[in-house]
């Protein structure tokens, strides 16, 4: 099988921002256990800025590494900036992914979007 980059392995072996946020402002879950990956993102938002983010991921090396990388990329960003981050940018930040693993980077992008959607929905109700 094609090798992962050093950066993917670093984020897989030492994932950043792992865990749950008990009083999260938004939670997004994407993926499917049948396909072997589920990503759950927790965000804290203050003044339109993502002040904290944590994740839990069930999946392969690429799924864990893209989760970890995307949390680093969006932390401290405004919601608009976070929504602009694409799966391609996540993959590039990891020095690339094997072609069959590109769908894992989609999950990272979708995970952030789902968490922000959830935050927006909760705030509309208020």
């Amino acid at each position: 099988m094609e090798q992962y980059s050093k950066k993917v392995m670093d984020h897989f072996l030492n994932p950043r921002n792992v865990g749950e946020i008990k009083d999260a402002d938004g939670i997004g879950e994407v993926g499917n256990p049948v396909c072997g990956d589920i990503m759950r993102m927790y965000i804290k938002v203050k003044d339109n800025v993502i002040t904290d983010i944590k994740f839990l991921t069930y999946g392969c090396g690429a799924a864990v590494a893209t989760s970890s990388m995307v949390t680093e990329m969006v932390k401290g960003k405004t919601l608009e900036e976070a929504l602009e981050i694409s799966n391609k940018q996540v993959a590039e930040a990891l020095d690339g992914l094997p072609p069959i693993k590109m769908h894992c980077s989609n999950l990272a992008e979708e995970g952030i979007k789902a968490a922000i959607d959830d935050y927006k929905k909760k705030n509309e109700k208020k």
Partner: protein
Amino acid sequence: MQKIIYMDNAATTKLSQKVLDEMMPYFVKNYGNPSSIYSLAQESASAIKEAREKTAKALGAQTNEIYFTSGGTESDNWAIKGVADANKEKGKHIITTSIEHHAVLHTCQYLEKQGFEVTYLPVESNGIINLDELKKAIREDTILISIMFANNEIGSIQPIAEIGKIAKEKGIYFHTDAVQAVGHIPIDVNELNIDLLSLSAHKFNGPKGVGVLYIRNGTKISNLLHGGAQERKLRAGTENVAGIVGLGKAIEIAVEDMNKNGEYVTELRDRLINGLLKIPDTILNGDPKLRLPGNVNVCFKYIEGESILLFLDQLGICASSGSACTSASLQPSHVLLAIGLPAEVAHGSLRLTLSNENTQEEVDYILNQLPSIVEKLRALSPLIKK
């Protein structure tokens, strides 16, 4: 370099030094084409004859029932397509199982597109077929039963003697993909009523790229490869002389050492299984007793297989998984789904396949390392209630 702990012997095995020594003269010194007339070529021809005798002896077969091929995949393709083609006037129905290797499954699916009908027998949760289901599946127009001897993923051993008996009574050809079994457990084609059997040298310390299809004398079968008159006109192509010599030596050694190695490897296997099952939420796949001596296959719930393999690779441990992420598809192993595992559990499988070169120290090292790997991955998992 980091020490390698190789526990993926179902994928391939290391070529034995004794086998390599036997093969070496047939690359540079005795390079003649066995079909040629001069003395140099006779060296090659007699080496093939000797390898054929060793192979026949190992299976309890006649020498003229041994056909050398390029490996297990070719043997499976030839057996199934060849019997289907030669017997299509008699019928168009084939019976196989849902847990076969892709070399059998995809060949059957191909034949379905050509107008054949295939029954894929289910298996019980231990990975073994139900003989009543087999009997019920047999039709007037059934021409072939193809059931693997032992499964490559979960090691389950099928009731081959009973299947052979049923097939013989009904006058249906019986093919078995014995790629994982040959050289590891005893096989006698006559006692077991096997009509066709596939084997591959690299699964028992022989070279890659060479295998055998055993075809019982009198079996109606068409060629897969057309061309020269090699292998009694049934399998064309200049013989892989060195490979065939290697296969012959490897099967001879494997059968000689079978009892000794089988006992040793089974003991390691059970030590490994018992140790792994102490990890919480771990299940054994396959039958605890009716399994290949070297096969260990477990699922760790809530985590995914490829991520386990990456941690093991960091420690120099070579293993495999039925997770989708170890292949190009998004589906987990068809074998693990067939034994009734939910997809998310099937993705968390780990296969460790042992050989006589593995040691108790290696087994204990893995048992020492795996709990913390599983724990680390579970800490990341959204599937587990915290």
